[in-house]
Each structure stands twice: as C-alpha cells, then as structure tokens.
C-alpha cells in the first residue's frame, strides 16, 4: 500500500514538476524558452544513448539518425493528416510521439541486428554509416522536402511534454538498473561470452537496448519537429550524433545522472558564451594578449593538476590543497602573462569576440575534462538520497 502511495505521489510530482517548468518557461522570452526545450530534448537523447552505449556497451555513434526518423515521420504525418484527424493538438502531439518512437524503434531494430556480429569500432562505423544513409536519403526525397526542409503544420509547442519525455526516459533507465533485469545488460557490456554461458540471451539484450534507446530518440524527434515547425536534414547532421555522444562520455559512460547533467551543461554552454556582453552592452571582446594568456594558464594548470594527481601516495588533503593552489596559480599566470603581452601593441589592439570563440572554448572544456577525469565527471556513480545523506554525515563527522 505504502508502495503505491509513494509511486502515485512521485508520478504526480514529476508531472507537476514538468508543468512547473512549462510555467516558468512561459514567463521567459522565446530564446530562453527554446533553450529550455532543447535542454529537455538533449537530456532524453543523452540518456537514451547512454542506455545503448554506456549500459549495454554497444558503441553507437548514429543517434541523430533515430532522432531524425522520429522527426520526419511525425512531420510528414502532421502535414498529411492533422487536418482530417480532428484531434485536439495535445492529443495529436502525443500520438505523434508514439508514432515517432515506433518508427525509430524499427530503425533501431535494423541497426541492432548488425550489432550482433560487430563490436567496438566496427559497430561504430556501421551506426555512423546508417546515420548518413538516413540523412542523405531524406535529402533526396522530394516528398519530405529534400534539402530545402519540411514545413511542419501545425506547430504545437509544449515544454511540459518535452520534459515529461525526459523524465520518463530517466525513470525507465533508472528502473532497469534498480531491478535484476538491468544486470544482463551490464553483463553483456562486460563480457559477452561469459554472459552467454550464464544463460543470458545476448541477442535479445542488445536488440532490446537498441529498440528502447532509439524509441526515446524518435519521440524526442517528434517533439522537435512540432516545436520548430521546420526541419531540414542539416538539423540532424553527423555532429549532432557526436554532441550526444560527448554528453554521454563526459557525464561518465553508464551513469544516468552524469548524462542528464552534462546534457544540460553542454546544451547551455555554447549559448551562454554566445550571449556574453561587456559593460557597454556590446559583445564581450578580449584582446589578443589576454586570449593567449588564458591558453597558457589553462595548459599549465592542467599540467600541474595532472602532476599532483599522478602520485597516488599523496594524502587526500594535500592533493586537495594542491588542486586549489593550481587553480589560483592559473589565474595568477593568466594575469601576469596577459599584462605582459598586452604591452605589445599588436596583441593589445587585436580584438576577439568571445561569442565567436565559443566552439573553441567548448572544445577546450572537453579536452580539459577528459585530461583531468577520463572516466567522465560522474564515472559510474549515480545520484541517490543515500549518497547525499552519507556525504552529509561524513561532513559532520569531520567537523566534530
């Protein structure tokens, strides 16, 4: 009984939370609203790819293809049938999510089958190829608008649906890992021969992971199509797959928490950098000297931190102080080198807009994180209330 009460309360809470996000989003301008929607979609994409890549260990880098299948199928159906269906927009959107998920699941099955015979980089190449096949096929299909894109009518925008899908995706993956059913997925990742010898049907596990993961991506695609009202094959180019993969790897392969947080962080970071303003309201610019100083500072800081952590024998506290020292030292180096270099007139006068450097900064963030923590920010850890309370107790124990 208690179980069902908690269950119902958490479902109601999740739905309420999603509508609360929608409420907040409506008070913001269009640009912020779009960011909130994209963050939700990327959370869904990253967590669903994490199911295939991180949990089941099938290295897939064509996730944008499933996203695209969902988007185009729902876009096509909306254009053709919305008028004659006479359904309320929200019901129609829900049906489109299901249709997108189903279509992507079929695509996932098609890609999942070669995964039975291929491993690692070979599978990666197949999924990459599949992604390109879908994109180029759509580009050359006049009925889908070709490379001009497809106008999706009607445009139905629902922040709550986007976040509900994200929450559902997280919940499904978390449930899988909480029950014994998740273990065969992990076992297949660890050792296929051994899992097969233990009676695990490896074929079934891999195909289930592909179907589930791609279905979520397809549903996300349907929501994107109806939100944007216009989709082109370029929306689903190869780099989208790589961004999603980056989110999974950066968050910690296999960690749902990591995927969620890095998906939100990475979808926001470039937009944040794009929007940086100086005190006068114009775009924030840096002089050439400062930019070079930042590069020097980051490289030296990373080198020092890696050196501090390379010696496993150092006590924990000493390493922590070393870390703080290295970061502070980095700022000092930046100031010193920057001031020095800015005395050179040419470097002082060369102005660079930070917004234009955003992809460079984005890439550099990734490189730095991978150098300092190659297993991903969360590694294989998950958020749990137990963990929070332990952390709290440990903090209290240390002060007492």
């Amino acid at each position, binding site marked *: 009984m208690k*179980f069902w009460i908690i*269950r119902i309360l958490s479902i109601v809470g999740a739905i309420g939370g999603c509508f609360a996000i929608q409420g907040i989003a409506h008070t913001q301008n269009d640009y912020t609203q779009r960011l909130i929607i994209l963050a939700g979609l990327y959370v869904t994409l990253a967590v669903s790819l994490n199911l295939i890549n991180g949990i089941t260990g099938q290295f897939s880098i064509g996730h944008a293809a499933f996203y695209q299948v969902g988007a185009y199928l729902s876009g096509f159906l909306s254009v053709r049938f919305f008028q004659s269906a006479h359904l309320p927009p929200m019901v129609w959107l829900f049906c489109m999510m299901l249709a997108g998920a189903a279509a992507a699941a079929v695509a996932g099955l098609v890609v999942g089958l070669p995964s039975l015979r291929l491993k690692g980089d070979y599978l990666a190449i197949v999924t990459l190829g599949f992604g390109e096949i879908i994109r180029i096929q759509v580009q050359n299909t006049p009925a889908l608008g070709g490379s001009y894109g497809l106008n999706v009518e009607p445009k139905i925008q629902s922040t709550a649906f986007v976040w509900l899908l994200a929450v559902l995706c997280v*919940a*499904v993956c978390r*449930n*899988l890992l*909480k*029950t*014994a*059913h*998740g*273990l*065969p997925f*992990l*076992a297949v*990742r*660890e*050792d296929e*021969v*051994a*899992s*097969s*010898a*233990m*009676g*695990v*049907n*490896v074929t079934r596990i891999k195909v*289930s992971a592909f179907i*589930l993961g791609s279905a979520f991506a397809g549903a996300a695609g349907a929501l994107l199509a109806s939100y944007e009202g216009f989709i082109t094959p370029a929306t689903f180019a190869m780099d989208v797959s790589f961004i999603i993969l980056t989110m999974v790897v950066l968050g910690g392969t296999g960690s749902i928490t990591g995927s969620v947080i890095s998906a939100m962080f990475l979808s926001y970071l470039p937009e944040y950098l794009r929007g940086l303003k100086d005190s006068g309201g114009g775009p924030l610019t840096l002089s050439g000297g400062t930019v070079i100083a930042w590069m020097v500072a980051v490289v030296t800081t990373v080198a020092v931190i890696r050196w501090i952590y390379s010696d496993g024998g150092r006590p924990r506290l000493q390493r922590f102080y070393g870390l703080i020292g290295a970061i502070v030292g980095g700022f000092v180096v930046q100031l010193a080198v920057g001031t020095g270099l800015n005395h050179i007139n040419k470097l002082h006068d060369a102005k660079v807009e930070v917004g234009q450097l955003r992809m460079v900064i984005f890439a550099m963030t990734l490189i730095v994180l991978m150098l300092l923590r190659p297993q991903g920010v969360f590694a*294989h850890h998950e958020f749990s209330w137990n963990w929070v309370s332990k952390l709290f107790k440990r903090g209290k124990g240390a002060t007492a």
Partner: protein
Amino acid sequence: MSILELNKATIRFGGLVAVNEVSFSLNKGDLFGLIGPNGAGKTTCFNLITGVYKPTSGDIFFNGTAITGTPSNKIAKLGICRTFQNIRLFKALSVLENVVVGGFLRHETGLFSALTYLPGSIKETEKLRADAMELLKVVNLEQVAHVRSADLSYGMQRRLEIARAMATGPELLLLDEPAAGMNPLEKEELLKMVRKIRDEHGMTVLLIEHDMRFVMNLCERIVVLDHGEEIAQGPPSAIRNDPKVIAAYLGEAV
C-alpha cells in the same frame, strides 16, 4: 543413464584437428577429470559441450537428448554451466551482482515490469539477491559481497566464478582449471568445496586441471587427451601408471 555423453566429437579449425573423435560419458554424481598436456584440446572440449563451438562431426548428448550445436545460453538453461580458464568475471559489477546474473535465467517477470518498476520485479530482484547471498556463503565470499569483482584476489575470483556458475542451477558443472594460481592452502579448501558441491548440491562435476595431485585426490574417473586424441580413460590409480600418459607428460624414455 549417463548425464553427458560425447560420441566421437571432432572439431577442425582449418587444417588443425583440435579435438579428434573424443568419446566419454559421465554418470550422474560423478567427479570426472579431464587432463592432458598444454594444447591437448581440453578447453576446446568444454567449448564444444557449452556450445561456444559447433562440432565438425560427432554428437553430444545431455540427459539423452542431443545438444550438438545448441547456442550457449540455451545450454545454460538446460543445466550445464561452466567457469573459464582465463577468468571472465563481469569486472565492473559487484561480487553479489555477478552471482545474480547467474541466477537471472530463472526470472519470470518480463522486461516491461522491470522498466515500470512493478512490485513483481522488485520482489524478484530481492529474491535473486537473497539466493545469490546464500551461494556466496557456500564459497566463503559473503564478506566481500559488495566489493567490485575486479578488486578480488585471484583465488577469490576463481571461487566467485564457481559461485556464479552454480547460481544458474546446473545439473552438470564444468570447471576449467579451478585451482590454477592458488596456493596449497587454497587448493585444499577448493578440494573440499568441490566435494561439497557434489555431495550437498547434487551437481555432477567435470573439471580440467593441471595439478596432478589435486586431480588424483579429487576425481573418481579421468580422461586423458593429447593432441586432440583420447589416450587413456579410467580411475586415477590406472591413469597414474599408464605408460601412454607418462609418455605424453614426460616424453618417451630414451
């Protein structure tokens, strides 16, 4: 009736005949040894029985039904489970989780029930974990149940592999060099453990081992392979004095 029967099982890899017309049969409750010098085809025999390879010719029967060429996961469900010579644990999983994977083939709830976290799958998870804990007690690993399996010592990893295989509830347990890398004390414990597995859990055991003292003490019947061919079969006392076996291990007298 014999629980496992190999009838002229043969496998060729290109020109190499790895196992050539090997026939032997195990009765229920046997402690059976499979020995031979390196490269004799012992592990290949295991791979044939557990469906990793399909024999080029010949048949394998389990409880009277042919299992030749059946996929490994189905063979595990029929009741044959094995350990591996080069330990193949699920390294990132905890000790307990490794054993739960073994017991998972008895699950009844579907994937949907797990994805929606229904009470059925939660109860089943609890039951599988409790069963796994019982098995860990048999192999003396209950203290380290929540340790990552890759962090265990070598001897413990070997014992965990046995527990994981036992979790599938097999009638026939195949152990591939269970004592390799163990010290004499650990070997002594393993010996007792394997006897206990047979006597108390009613499993038939077929094992590959290089340590002659271990095999001679433990097994009641032994088959000797050399270069893929069966060269002797019988109780340890007979094997020990068989001139062919001595020749295979030590070479011919000059």
